[in-house]
């Protein structure tokens, strides 16, 4: 087990300070107006002023993220298991999974809203659709790419199909699944925020962060808009961070991705 590297935080922190310095200098030097690029302190002040709206929005978006993420993980894993368990299921069903992937969610959104109306329902479905594919694609690949020599080993010892799945295919697919999970975790907030902008109107006072952004931009609250961007970024970090932690917990002992 390795310790989480605290020393490596020093470099990004240093660069952050330099970056913020350049930010202030650029505004002063090029006389950039505040409605294009506010200073960091203006953004912080706006964030504090609007903290109730931002927090409520963030909470609502996180809720959509959590529901969308977990349903896509559950659905993705179940579909992957089905796809990996028989050749005909893979060959028959996978093209349709691809089709769903190739259809942009932006195009599907109006149809989804038509069916499920404005609000959390449609938003989570949009989130689900965006996170679903990387999980299915990666997990299926992992389940189907088992080393033939290890399959022979299981055959020599008369392993049943179930044992082969449980003790060989699933553990082998773990790194693939977690890679899919990481991609999905990064996409989930995007799905939820996009869902907010198109289906967030019905939520009333419980508007998600995406809808908050729409309101801020129409009101020309530019520093608050930047504050909303940073809040969205934090949600993304939260998700990816949690998945990375899970990744580390499950694989650090044996997988090569943790050899340095």
């Amino acid at each position, binding site marked *: 087990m390795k310790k989480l590297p605290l020393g490596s935080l020093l470099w990004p922190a240093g660069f952050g300070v330099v970056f913020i310095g350049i930010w202030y200098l650029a505004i002063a030097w090029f006389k950039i107006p505040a409605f294009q690029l506010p200073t960091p302190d203006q953004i912080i002040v706006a964030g504090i002023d609007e903290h109730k709206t931002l927090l409520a929005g963030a909470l609502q978006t996180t809720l959509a993220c959590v529901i969308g993420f977990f349903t896509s993980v559950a659905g993705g894993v179940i579909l992957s298991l089905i796809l990996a368990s028989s050749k005909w299921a893979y060959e028959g069903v996978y093209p349709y999974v691809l089709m769903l992937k190739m259809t942009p969610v932006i195009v599907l959104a109006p149809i989804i809203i038509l069916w499920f109306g404005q609000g959390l329902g449609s938003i989570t479905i949009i989130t689900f659709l965006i996170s679903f594919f990387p999980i299915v694609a990666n997990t299926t690949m992992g389940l189907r790419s088992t*080393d033939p*020599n*290890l399959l*022979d*080993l*299981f*055959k*020599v*010892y*008369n*392993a049943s199909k179930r*044992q082969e799945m449980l*003790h*060989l295919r699933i*553990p*082998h697919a*773990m790194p693939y699944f977690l890679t899919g999970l990481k991609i999905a975790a990064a996409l989930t907030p995007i799905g939820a925020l996009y869902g907010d902008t198109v289906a967030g109107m019905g939520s009333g006072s419980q508007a998600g962060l995406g809808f908050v952004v729409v309101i801020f931009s129409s009101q020309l609250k530019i520093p608050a808009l930047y504050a909303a961007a940073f809040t969205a970024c934090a949600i993304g970090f939260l998700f990816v961070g949690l998945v990375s932690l899970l990744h580390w917990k499950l694989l650090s*002992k*044996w*997988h*090569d991705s943790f*050899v340095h």
Partner: protein
Amino acid sequence: MRQALKLIVDYQTNMDKKPLVHLEQVSKQFGKGPVILDNINLEIQRGDLIALIGPSGCGKSTLLKLIANLIPASSGNINVGGGSAESAREKLGYVFQDANLLPWATAADNITLPLKLKRFSRNQKYKIARKLLSLVGLQHAADHYPRQLSGGMRMRVSIARALSTQPELLLLDEPFGALDEMTRDDLNEELLKLRLVQKWTGVFVTHSVTEAVFLSSSILVMSANPGRIYQEIPVEFPYPRTAETRREPEFQQKVMQVTEALHSLREPIR
């Protein structure tokens, strides 16, 4: 009573005389590709340790897979232990090229994998793992993952895994091919020591003439395109063999004999 006893003795001697592995006119061809193995006839008696050696492409590994029933023969009969193919698997241990361990399982868990698949209890598994780990000298590495082990240690785990079910027949597919010569010699000696503890019959594939002479009771030299058994060379030195055995002139002579047999297989250089 005496009558019955005699019957049992007869039965046992009969059992012993019957070959453990019997191949009759076995051929193998993948689809419409070239013939890999052509008309192989082979009898392996209990207690034999047979080496398969020959140029690459002579079907040594294929022959091993046929015996293990991992792939079907194109024609001919294969019989292991006088029973069905299913019951034959119960008697089988298989050591693969390159250790072939589960990377997510510890050494102990890798060793007991066959037992897990046969639904042994946790307690039984633990006992057998401890015994085998000490047998192959890896007591200290029980909880290590494969990536923390050296090539030689991984191979030891792999052999211990194959022995965990106490097989009657052990098939080894180039088990030490990826190891350096020192480690290979050590493991050769250890393998023979293990055979004193568990008396299995063995068939192994190798590219090393010295390894073949050191380990086996009989060497089958195979020719390629198509794979055939070209020559059988018995190795008479008594077991147990030790590092000393390699230094004896008879050993060197035998190595020469096998090498010459292999050279005579070479296609003439144009």
